[in-house]
């Protein structure tokens, strides 16, 4: 009495369990069986124990019960007059046969809202190709099949809108001295600059600089608030012209308050630096980077307010600006010239990347579009902007449009360096099959109603951008997952294929969801599936980005993505990696096993 015939068909291979007490002589039908989608909950609640001897639904249908059986008991061969044969090898053969004779049909949603259907082989039809407008029900039928004369179909040809050249300037040595300068790859920082920098904000009580070389990583550090590149504009605005980036050196901001309380929110990364940063991840220092540590002490009890942590970022930025000014003039060795292009590939599927960033205040904030790459001055904070979605071009993001006032967990936050080399931005922009039309930043507000409000704004934006697909990411986990899932719903209910990317694993399991969140990519790299307090450990990596982009293509092309298992399992992630020729996701053992 418990499942319908439709449910039955989806669950033929699932365990057969009586929903109710059933008596001897019964001929088993769908109506007698419990809905398998409830089993996990029932097992969790201790109401049901699945048995290895239990039969599958397809094995018991039509069989007669030889004895009375209680509700929620696995059905075994002993209680039945017969067990239906379901020989798996015979089945496989059948499958491969059907595959051969199966019509080969590809459909694709392309530019100009056309649905492209190509049937390579089917019974009585060969080589048929159809292009139909999507959602064209309102258009007069006569127009549907007639292309406008003289207008060639768009081909996905690349059209460059603007170019940004990033010149990576080699820095091989950093020292503190009497005057800030860059000479022959040697960056010298005025050791007294901190005295001026600290005056930038009264909430910053002291600032100290020191230099950490790659061979000096095993030393204590206070919590890592941010990792920030040194980059500066020498020509044009953010996203175009020329930017110089100091190569081989990054700033690392650490902070405590006057009482020695770490400036952090969910989790703190103080400890030995070599154990507290995931070197090489996009937001982190690379293995061979020289780290300029800028340590701030802020006014007591201001760590969990908006102005306190911001003061530390602002004062550090004063120091960085003096170096930017030297970098502008420096004409030393260019180790790499990186050409970034904002392009349009008309005719390819129009995709957007949506990045949910924290917007709850305190450290949950970001500066958007400062004057200098990764800077502070001239930018606006997303909290002050009401956390509404803001569209940037891929080049703007790659030119340091986001200065992260990062918070949340160390492992799951995206630091300033993350954005200037965001793997999803890089991957989508480089993909010749897609047309990346923009990167949307949307803040995650503190109040539930506001979360829904900004999400609705995102929905309208996605609709008006006329996009064919989107990837939505979020840093952190917890309350921001409410809006994250909402965003996925906004895309999904408009029929826009969507892929979600987040840290969830064990600790960040989703507690809300909707039917559109069917293609999800896990960022976790902790063995226990926890926020492990290792800065930058579980965030968007190149592998995460590759899996997400492939899932999006699958979804847009209508190629199935199997549903996720109920519990986080790294084997699923590695199976996807293997399928795409990516290296294995090796989890970091940081003592979080539970």
């Amino acid at each position, binding site marked *: 009495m418990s499942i319908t015939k439709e449910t039955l068909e989806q669950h033929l291979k699932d365990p057969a369990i009586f*929903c109710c007490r059933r008596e001897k002589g019964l001929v088993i039908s769908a109506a007698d069986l*419990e809905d398998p989608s*409830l089993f996990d909950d029932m097992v969790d609640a201790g109401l049901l124990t699945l048995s290895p001897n239990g039969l599958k639904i397809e094995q018991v249908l039509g069989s007669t019960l030889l004895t009375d059986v209680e509700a*929620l008991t696995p059905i075994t061969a002993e209680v039945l007059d017969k067990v239906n044969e379901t020989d798996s090898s015979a089945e496989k053969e059948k499958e491969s046969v059907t595959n051969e004779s199966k019509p080969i049909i590809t459909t694709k949603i392309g530019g100009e809202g056309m649905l492209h259907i190509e049937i390579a082989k089917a019974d009585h039809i060969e080589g048929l190709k159809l292009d139909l407008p999507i959602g064209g029900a309102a258009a007069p039928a006569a127009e549907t099949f007639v292309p406008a004369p003289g207008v060639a179909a768009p081909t996905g040809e690349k059209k460059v809108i603007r170019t940004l050249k990033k010149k990576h300037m080699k820095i091989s040595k950093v020292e503190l001295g009497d005057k800030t300068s860059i000479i022959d790859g040697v960056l010298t920082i005025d050791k007294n600059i901190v005295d001026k920098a600290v005056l930038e904000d009264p909430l910053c009580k002291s600032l100290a600089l020191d230099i950490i070389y790659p061979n000096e990583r095993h030393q204590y550090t206070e919590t890592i608030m941010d990792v920030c590149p040194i980059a500066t504009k020498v020509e044009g605005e953010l996203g175009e012209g020329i930017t110089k980036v100091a190569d081989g050196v990054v700033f690392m901001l650490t902070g405590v308050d006057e009482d020695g309380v770490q400036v952090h929110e969910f989790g703190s990364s103080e400890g030995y630096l070599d154990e507290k940063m995931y070197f090489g991840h996009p937001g982190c220092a690379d293995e061979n980077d020289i780290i300029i540590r800028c340590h701030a002490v802020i006014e007591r009890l201001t760590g969990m307010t908006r102005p306190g942590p911001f003061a530390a970022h602002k004062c550090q930025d004063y120091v960085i600006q003096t170096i930017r000014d030297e970098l502008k003039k420096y004409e030393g060795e260019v180790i790499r010239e990186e050409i970034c292009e904002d392009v349009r590939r008309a005719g390819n599927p129009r995709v957007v990347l949506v990045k949910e960033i924290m917007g709850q205040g305190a450290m949950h904030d970001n500066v958007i579009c400062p004057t200098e790459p990764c800077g502070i001055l001239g930018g606006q904070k997303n909290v002050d902007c009401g956390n509404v979605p803001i569209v940037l071009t891929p080049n703007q993001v790659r030119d340091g449009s986001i200065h992260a006032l990062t918070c949340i967990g160390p492992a799951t936050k995206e630091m300033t360096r993350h954005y200037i080399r965001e793997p999803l931005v890089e991957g989508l922009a480089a993909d010749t099959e897609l047309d990346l039309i923009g990167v949307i930043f949307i803040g995650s507000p503190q109040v539930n109603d506001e979360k829904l409000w900004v999400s609705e704004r995102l929905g309208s934006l996605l609709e008006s951008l006329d996009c064919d697909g989107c990837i939505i990411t979020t840093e952190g986990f917890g309350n921001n997952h409410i809006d994250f899932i909402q965003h996925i719903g906004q895309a999904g209910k408009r029929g826009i294929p969507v892929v*979600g990317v987040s840290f969830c694993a064990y600790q960040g399991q*989703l507690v809300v*969801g909707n039917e559109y969140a069917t293609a999800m*990519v*896990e960022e976790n790299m902790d063995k226990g599936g926890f926020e492990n307090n290792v800065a930058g450990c579980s965030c968007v990596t190149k592998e995460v980005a590759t899996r997400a982009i492939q899932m999006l293509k699958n979804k847009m092309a209508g190629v199935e993505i199997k549903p996720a298992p109920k519990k986080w399992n790294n084997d699923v992630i590695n199976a*996807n990696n293997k399928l795409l020729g990516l290296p294995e996701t090796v989890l970091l053992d940081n003592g979080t096993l539970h």
Partner: protein
Amino acid sequence: MLTTKEGMQSEIFVPVTPKPVFSELKKPLSECKVAFITAGGIHKKSQTPFNTSGDFSYRTIEFSTPSSELMVTHGGFDNSDINKDVNAMFPIDRLHELVEEGFIGSLATETYTFMGGGGNVEKFKNETGPEIARKLKDQGVDIVLCTGGCGTCHRSATIVTRCCEELGMSCVVIAALPPIARQQGAPRITAPHVPIGSNAGEPNNIPQQTAIVKESLEWVRDCPSYNQMKVLPYEYRHNV
């Protein structure tokens, strides 16, 4: 043309949860009009029994009905407990006692019961649920208590309870299978340790039944937000 890869699997489990629905209780319990609905297949002996293979109809039961005139028709669990004492699923006698005691203000004139096993989700969501909710609301009901029965009963019970909550009544599902009530989006949940079939407590154990009903009412008052669950410290094991 897009390059696709067969065999990819989604990496994050996403529970499909309905949207939150929550009506805060704005009166003391002693001033509230209370109703009790159940998906556990309770009806009057004089009424047409439910179709045990799935039924989205409901029966009207006046709260003045003596418990001796009620019975169960439900194939989803062992009926012996309810056969002994209908209060194990539908604690009508306990509710009258709570009115006398002054713990609650009054009872609705009539209530509505159904058999949620194998329940048709769309029918319960769009027809039966809204209809029951409207009829309770028209009687001025403030609080709705609800028991499920079997697994899919909890789903049907939760759907109807959500309809009531949407009309502004404050509701709680007394769940023997709390994960299902939770996942299906019950506004509030209490969870005594009881088997399905005796969702409101051990048959003829008046103190236990009273405590479960009272604490469920208190949870309607105290529950801070949507979908929160309170485990009740009452245990009953049913050996069939």
